[in-house]
């Protein structure tokens, strides 16, 4: 299917949005400029529940910027973003996160001076111990709650293979380990939409395998998963749908084999 051009994209959107119930995130004509640079240029995309969507494109294409817009860390110059029909652009990031949009950063962003375990524990939502009054007055209840969080956090650390390092400070972990830690942290926070910015970069091959199966499993559980990924084999393997971005615009989208086979994409991206 489609290879170039925005018009085609919009006709597609008009058709698909109505027919697919699973749309969770819908971006309409998003634009974001930095100085004179259009980092995101009139982008309209939708992401669906139960699907893994890959966002690919050369460096500086604007992929991360699009994630920043959706998660509220940047405000679009124009355009709208909807999450399950609710407009979310303009809301503060933490509100968007609380609505269920989880986010993995390209630059890992661990809490350096916190232990690995605390990095995960801090992520759980609805901790009554985060209220300074409850934490003093209802210490016992908070402690009990904390116990469940600790067990759950340990389970997640085991899942990403960091059990042995639970007491190490996050800043002392290697890059790959930090990445895994942020994944555990994201799972602890729980989300309905996962925006993953290069989750496999810097992670060892074995771990990549289990990450990929995790990503598939999240989609099977009905989550919306969007992955920014540079490794085309990975894209072929896990993506149900691919958007190709270049110079701030979506220039192609479709099934993985279609997009990766597209001439324009190959010239723009792979230089073939």
């Amino acid at each position, binding site marked *: 299917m489609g290879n170039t051009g925005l018009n085609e994209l919009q006709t597609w959107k008009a058709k698909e949005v109505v027919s697919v119930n699973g749309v969770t995130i819908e971006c309409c004509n998003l634009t974001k400029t930095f100085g004179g640079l259009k980092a995101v240029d009139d982008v309209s995309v939708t992401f669906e529940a139960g699907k893994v969507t890959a966002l690919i494109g050369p460096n500086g294409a604007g992929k991360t910027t699009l994630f920043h817009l959706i998660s509220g860390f940047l405000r679009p110059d124009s355009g709208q973003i909807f999450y399950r029909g609710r407009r979310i652009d303009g809301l503060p*990031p933490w509100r968007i996160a609380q609505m269920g949009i989880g986010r993995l950063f390209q630059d890992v962003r661990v809490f*350096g001076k916190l232990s690995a375990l605390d990095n995960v524990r*801090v992520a759980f939502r609805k901790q009554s111990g985060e209220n300074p009054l409850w934490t003093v007055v209802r210490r016992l209840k908070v402690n009990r709650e904390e116990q469940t969080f600790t067990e759950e956090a340990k389970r997640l650390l085991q899942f990403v293979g960091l059990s042995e390092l639970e007491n190490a400070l996050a800043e002392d972990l290697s890059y790959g380990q930090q990445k895994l830690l942020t994944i555990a942290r994201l799972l602890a926070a729980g989300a309905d939409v996962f925006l993953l910015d290069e989750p496999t970069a810097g992670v060892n091959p074995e771990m990549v395998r289990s990450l990929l199966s995790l990503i598939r499993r999240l989609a099977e559980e009905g989550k919306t998963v969007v992955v920014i990924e540079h490794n085309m084999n990975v894209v072929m393997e896990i993506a149900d749908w691919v958007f190709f971005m270049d110079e701030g615009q979506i220039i192609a989208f479709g099934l993985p084999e279609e997009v990766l086979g597209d001439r324009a994409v190959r010239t723009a991206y792979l230089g073939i």
Partner: protein
Amino acid sequence: MNYLWHILVMINIYIILALSFNLVAGYTGLLSLCHAAFYGIGAYATTLLMMKAGWGFFPSLLAAILLTGVLSLIIAVPSLRLRGDYFVLATLGFQIIVFTILYNWVSLTRGPYGIPGIPIPKVFGVEVNTVFRYFLFSGVIAGFCSLLLWMLKTSPFGRVLKAIREDEIAAAALGKNVSGLKVTAFAIAAGFAAVPGALFAGYMRYIDPTSFTLMESVFIIAIIIIGGAGNFIGPVVGAAFMVLLPEALRFLHIPDAIAANMRQIIYGLLLIILMRYRPQGLFGEYGFE
């Protein structure tokens, strides 16, 4: 003997100041230059309530804590979105404004003349009228405050503050209300700073604005930096060290005329040296990086 108890009273007072300031600076990573302003507001509020409204020490103290916490919102809410040195500057401005008000609102505070004759606190009808009693009294209160602050710092609340300190963007991405939590921590710290204010007023039985200057805020920062920020032991050690330093100089027979300057030179140099080689202070875990 009174001399020893006197020093311990001062250490008790500074321990509460340091531990409460640590909640803001060490845990949340906000270097505020107006902690002495809250200390002063606490001292004046308690004093005025005792003397003008005739309240007892403890009701006045409770009201002062609330008042200080609420007043801290004036500066906290707008300036917490400022970063780094802009936040430091805004709090510095607030410190100077509070001092100016204490100094010039003569009809309320008697300005530079200060307020003499502050009533002695009473506990269950017993006057805390000797230095030793005041040591016990301030020790119990300092212990209680430390316990509360310790509970806060070792709780999920303390943990999320640390997370914000480390990376507020990541914290926001996890759904933490970063500015709300910062404001809360700031107000709690301010409220706690009112306690040593009240203790100081009740102990000295006289207050004037010169105890609550910008330099006093700097002194509190120095305590945290020398002892170490971000954990519990650092501020306690820092407070003890900073209170004992002038006494130590006295034992070295350094003449009074230069001892005061000498002490400040020492802590100024310590600040420089620690920032260079050990920004987390002697016992701390957080180095303002």
